[in-house]
């Protein structure tokens, strides 16, 4: 993951320093080796799986199971061999990947904003929470793709139906997690906010959102993967003229198995990249309090504990 630190800037100024530097260089080398070994180990399973896939597919020689190297080559030719000015994207990629990503991003942002907003409202009112909890649990229990036929009827074919499918599936994890995060706000901190007479907006911004943030991100990660699923699924239906899902059905109808595999690999890579991006944002937002530690004065926290006890 992270590159090994270098100590090039250290210049020996005298004999002792030279010895220290030599020692440091030795240590650095050892650390580099350790890090490289760690990185290799983490990827070892992936590398082994790819190798096995490659060897197996080549040995078998079936047109239905092309080896990964051919799939990668095909994906490159299909989407990523475009001109520099288009960020190496081919016209096919512009037609396939960008509309899908656009719909997914719009759906995700909408689900996130509405989900966090409603989640805070529901979480901060015990009555609203009690009233909404059964509904939320029910809505969450529905397998999201099963809602798509309903949206096909309610909305127009194409983008409105696709957006609705994405939003209505992805909103629940954010909403439920945000509500629980907001509900678990430390009661002492709510007292502090009352004593400082923070306005409702200040309370939201300085207390409720930051303390619910870890839960919000747990919900967002779930939502993101749902967005990807629903994005593809809604594009599989008629009324779609572009997008990754359309490319998949199109290739399937032409029995172009190589493209089908390329789309699958593309989807996996997209999911991985998007999740990595979300994790990076989360780390940036919550990293500041990585030093947070439990305080010693614990015997006053009985109220929190009793609340926690009820919620679990």
């Amino acid at each position, binding site marked *: 993951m992270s590159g090994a630190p270098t100590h090039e800037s250290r210049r020996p100024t005298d004999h002792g320093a030279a010895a220290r530097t030599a020692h440091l260089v030795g240590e650095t080398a050892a650390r580099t080796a350790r890090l490289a070994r760690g990185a290799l180990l983490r990827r070892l399973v992936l590398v082994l799986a790819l190798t096995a896939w490659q060897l197996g597919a080549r040995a078998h020689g079936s047109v239905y199971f092309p080896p990964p190297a051919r799939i990668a080559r095909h994906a490159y030719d299909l989407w990523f061999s475009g001109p520099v000015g288009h960020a190496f994207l081919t016209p096919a990629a512009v037609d396939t990947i960008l509309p899908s990503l656009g719909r997914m991003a719009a759906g995700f942002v909408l689900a996130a904003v509405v989900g966090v907003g409603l989640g805070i409202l529901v979480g901060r009112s015990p009555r609203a929470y009690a009233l909404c909890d059964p509904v939320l649990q029910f809505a969450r229990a529905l397998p999201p793709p099963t809602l798509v036929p309903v949206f096909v009827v309610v909305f127009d074919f194409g983008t409105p139906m696709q957006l609705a499918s994405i939003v209505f599936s992805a909103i629940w994890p954010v909403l439920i997690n945000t509500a629980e995060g907001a509900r678990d706000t430390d009661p*002492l901190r709510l*007292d*502090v906010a009352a*004593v400082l007479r*923070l306005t409702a907006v200040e309370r939201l911004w*300085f207390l409720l959102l930051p303390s619910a943030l870890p839960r919000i991100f747990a919900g967002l990660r779930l939502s993101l993967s749902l967005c990807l699923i629903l994005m593809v699924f809604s594009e599989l239906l008629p009324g779609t003229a572009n997008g990754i899902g359309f490319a998949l059905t199109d290739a399937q109808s032409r029995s172009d198995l190589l493209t089908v595999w390329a789309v699958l690999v593309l989807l996996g890579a997209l999911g991985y990249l998007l999740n990595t991006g979300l994790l990076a944002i989360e780390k940036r937002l919550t990293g500041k309090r990585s030093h947070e530690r439990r305080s*010693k004065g614990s015997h*006053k926290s009985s109220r929190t504990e009793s609340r926690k006890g009820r919620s679990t």
Partner: protein
Amino acid sequence: MLRLDSLSQHYGDQPVLHDLSLTVPDGQLLCVVGPSGCGKSTLLRTVAGLLPAREGTITIDDTPVTGVPDRLAVVFQDYGRSLLPWLTVRDNVALPLRRQGLRRAERRAEADRILDRVGLTGAARRHPGQLSGGMQQRVAIARALVCRPSLLLMDEPFGSLDAQTREDLEDLLLEVHRTDRTTIVFVTHDIDESVYVGDRVVVLTPGPGAKVALDLPVELPCPRDQIGTRGLPEFVALRTRVGRAVRTPGRAQV
């Protein structure tokens, strides 16, 4: 002047405070002592307007307390939870200044000034979690002082600190009180601390239904110092009386 008039408070069906009357003149540092669970914190939360009084009234300068009063500040025991860990020390301290309509630069300057005063020069840009317990409680005290409160409530503020840090913060509190003459209600279960810090010590009876068991003026010379004051015969006599009242409240009525 803070005035409690036959105040009663319940927690569910359980009486916590019963018919408690108390007057705290301006500028007094009153220590409230009592066995744990006797309702000291409930008393403080009621005065802070966080809990409505079940019976009786609380007035500050003849204005009844209905919500959180103006120019009131509270320091809680659990500094780790009372500070906001996602804000820097400076932003924590400057938070109460937002409602005064100060500009950002003014808020920061004011926060830095108070941080200097509590001995935290240079810690402004760190986060609370990076500081020791004593330093975190100093941040909480700075946040309480930044609005120049006329009434400061402290709920066992030094209860979870080690002895040396606690003594340092007791002296910081005395210095703040000597210069600002803020009215302070200081809740503690530490008998020595109450006599050392207080102008006056009030002992509550053990619950349920706590009331005043002992009301004692502390006439020790000021400024106080940790070694000298604690060695005075008057100090020992006072701590003995308070200690007896805490242990056997029935016989120590004054």
